[in-house]
């Protein structure tokens, strides 16, 4: 049996280094136009990739997830706050699954 604390140490070390290295090393404004554009687009692309189709699989019924997606998209489009949008998605899933599951 291997030592669980060592596994924790290894995974914690790797996880932290991945995050800290760029923040510590990149101390100046990046001037390359392509690189700047790339970093500007990264957040939106990565969050989109993680949202769909995962939102359909996070719920017990994919339909409930789809309803949450539509609700969230419409509310966010109308400029509702983060808390509002997130809470509405939760509520929609809860109510939808009462009927669906």
């Amino acid at each position: 049996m291997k030592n669980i604390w060592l596994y924790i140490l290894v995974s914690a070390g790797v996880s932290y280094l991945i995050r800290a290295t760029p923040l510590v090393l990149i101390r100046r404004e990046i001037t390359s136009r392509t690189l700047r554009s790339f970093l500007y687009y990264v957040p939106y692309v990565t969050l989109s990739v993680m949202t769909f189709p995962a939102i359909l699989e996070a719920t017990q019924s994919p339909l409930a997830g789809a309803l949450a997606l539509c609700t969230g998209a419409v509310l966010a489009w109308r400029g509702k706050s983060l808390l509002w949008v997130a809470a509405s998605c939760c509520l929609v899933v809860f109510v939808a699954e009462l009927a669906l599951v």
Partner: protein
Amino acid sequence: MKENRGCFYRGARDGTPIALGYFAVAFTLGIAAKNAGFSAVQAMVESLTNNASAGEYAVFSLVAAGAGYWEVAVMTLVANARYLLMSCSLSQKLALDTPLLHRLLVAYDVTDEIFGISIAYPGRLNPWYTYGAMAVAIPGWGLGTLLGVMVGNVLPLRLASAMGVGLYGMFLAIIVPPAKKDRVVLGLVLLSFAASYAASRWSLLAGAPPGVKTIVLTVAISLGAAVLFPADGKGEAQA
């Protein structure tokens, strides 16, 4: 000082839905940890030092399968590689003269969610905003894992599923408003949805850990967009 306090409270407010979502996700992670032979305290420490759902899940399954330390190190690197990109992005969002200590602290909790709200912060990121979000989100994450190990399956599925979806609602609140203002971003969001869906159906990527799909698509799509639609002047949204 006063400004920092305001930022902290604002971060705590925006971090509240994150904490709820984290609690639900961490709870299911706790169940996986228990199966891998972690005690409740060990699982909580793993969560508090890793702050990564996919990464931790990979660690738990590897340990359960009796893998070696190197395998765990490599898998953690692969599953969490996207945080490297996020930290690069954040380095441009912080004021250039942000002291080392703040950089080291912000780095501690670069997660999909904390990164998301930090990027959405108007103008340069005040680290105290991120700390506010961390102050509520991290306890939710640690406690969820702890309870997941201790009480297993008592959280009703219905509640877990409703809480879990809050994280995606948050992502929508972050990506939709810029998409409304910038048609390139709108196109990219829709393209990313489609590509992510296609990849989840494509057997080669569907079998890979979730972090791999995310990073491959992120790099490919963002790079293509950067070459085709250089974001001149839009850099300020980032800065």
